[in-house]
């Protein structure tokens, strides 16, 4: 865990960086909500009293709205579904990405999107406008199978990945659990 130590008036303060865990997706659209389900599970397991620096939330927004939700945090742990829809996809496969990785798989800066821009464009926009964007990104993306059908239950392979992502995040950031 990243910590800053500040000596003030003879006392040593441990200042944890302000961290956001954000699960993305639609929890009622089969696999689309895998990120939300991971975030909810982390909220159950992490001892939040031991982590006053931590906020856990969920969002189904992309692009600008997501970027706005991230502003003000120094570190972001983002969990989302990764939809390839090709023969070579492996549902349940977990990708651990940096922001640069995300940038490299975003094929375009173009706003052909239905009603929003990509997160990358949104973050670039924020930077251009002089906003401080989070310095650290840890992105967990789970390959998914079905994001077009309404259901609260993920497909089996994706369901299996949920506890694995949860434990990877707990380990990566040494979060204290209950």
């Amino acid at each position, binding site marked *: 865990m990243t910590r800053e130590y500040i000596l003030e008036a003879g006392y040593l303060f441990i200042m944890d960086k302000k961290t956001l865990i954000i699960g993305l997706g*639609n929890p009622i659209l089969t696999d689309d909500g895998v990120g939300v389900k991971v975030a909810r599970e982390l909220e159950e397991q992490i001892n939040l009293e031991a982590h006053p620096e931590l906020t856990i939330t969920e969002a189904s927004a992309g692009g600008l709205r997501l970027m706005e*939700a991230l502003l003000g945090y120094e570190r972001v742990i983002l969990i989302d579904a*990764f939809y390839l829809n090709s023969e070579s996809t492996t549902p349940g496969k977990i990708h651990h990405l940096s922001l640069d990785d995300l940038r490299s798989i975003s094929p*375009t800066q*173009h*706003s*052909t999107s239905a009603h929003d821009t990509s997160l990358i464009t949104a973050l670039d*926009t924020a930077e251009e406008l002089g906003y401080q964007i989070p310095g650290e990104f840890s992105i967990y993306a789970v390959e998914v199978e079905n994001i077009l059908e309404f259901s609260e239950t993920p497909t089996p392979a994706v369901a299996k990945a949920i506890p694995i992502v949860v434990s990877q995040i707990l380990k990566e950031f040494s979060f204290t659990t209950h």
Partner: protein
Amino acid sequence: MERITIDPITRLEGHGKIEIFLNEEGNVKNAYLQIPELRGFEQFSIGRPAEEMPRITNRICGVCPEAHHMAATKALDALFDIEPSPVVKKLRELFYSAFYVTDHTVHFYALGGPDFVLGPDSNPAERNILGVIHKVGVDIGIQVIECRKRNHEVIKMLGGRGVHPVAGLPGGWSKSMTKEEREIILDYSQKNIDFALFSLKLFDDIVLANQAYVDLIVSDAFTHKTYYMGTVDDKNLINFYDGLIRVTGPEGAELVKYPSKDYAQHIAERVEPWSYLKFPYLKDVGWKGFVDGVDSGVYCATPLSRFNAADGMATPKAQEHFERFYETLGSKKVDGRFTPVHHRLATHWARLIEMLYAAERMQELANDPEILDPNVRPIATNTPTEGVGSVEAPRGTLTHHYKTDENGILTDVNLIVGTTNNYAPIAMSIKKAAEGLIKGGVVNEGLLNTIEMAFRNYDPCMSCATHSLPGQMPLEVEIKDADGNLIDTQRQYID
């Protein structure tokens, strides 16, 4: 129909595909937009308590959860047969107006605007909000973000939660407004009015002052003469939250005006063998295919449609701009109302005027002496049976229809979402754009740009519930010959 195969790198969420079919001569015969449809919502909902619908349906879409929340809440009013009190209606409309300001802001600055601000022929990589900022300045970008921020704050304040509001109750609203909240909203609504006026000035300076753009807007390539749908108040003025649904014809005459519960008497859905989309049309006119004209039941439901279906706007500044809109675009007043404007690209201008109206309406409602009335949570006592609720979503009339058993458990659910209304006109606009650029089997440059402009003005919402990574939808166009063989694929992305 041949299934799409796409390189995995470009395979993204909410993929929209355009298919263009050529005839024997190699000219455009038909062009269609294929949108992946979400499946199984009805089955998902059946068996659940109806009062959960405002919170469930707002999950359908990550772009306009507020519109679904509101349509669902209004369907519950009807289902439980409980008339909301004036303060409830006003709080809901105030909340909804804040949503309109932010939604229309995004469209103009991030989506529709770049075509004009940067030009229709500019590099696609630049034609986004970032490009707009480079062109018009960082200050404007900050204003856009600030506008969104303050209105999301209002949405959270009144709706109980940031992205997916929770305040809607049958006949009520879970939270009344405090004096302090009113002060904040009054401040914000003035800022919204200023920002809307500023945006209209920008539209004047960049678009209307440029003859080439004006020519493009009024050009035949972007013109369709169809029926128009919109919700109007008792004076036939535009209202986003409530009223009767009015449909007017290509010549401007009113075809029909009905309460939303009668929608099934007036709207039917056309099924085509080549698409799983259903194309709504006007029953009173009938289906004649994807064609313009007074005999064709194709209708449109967009900001431009709301303008054409109404007699005016209920707030003073927006009304001024409404009149200027029609006068500038060459419309005449007949029997007290303007003849319709059919130029689809004018939708962008109408959208900005709607933003001004929403901002003014926010201010009016926040100033209303009744708005602080704390009695917002009535108890529904009637046995539920069936209810329809509708609102004007930013991208078209949105209708929710529920049936339940006597315990309020859902037995039947039907939704007509905003974009659905426009499936037929979108297909027509794409076809027209393609016709100009494909001749004798030769595809001319600029096809993708022109097609994008043609459909973007409808602000279509495609499977917007999903935001999986990488999180962006490329435009893909497939061109097929008379035998259905794929002869060309064009994609709008940068390697």
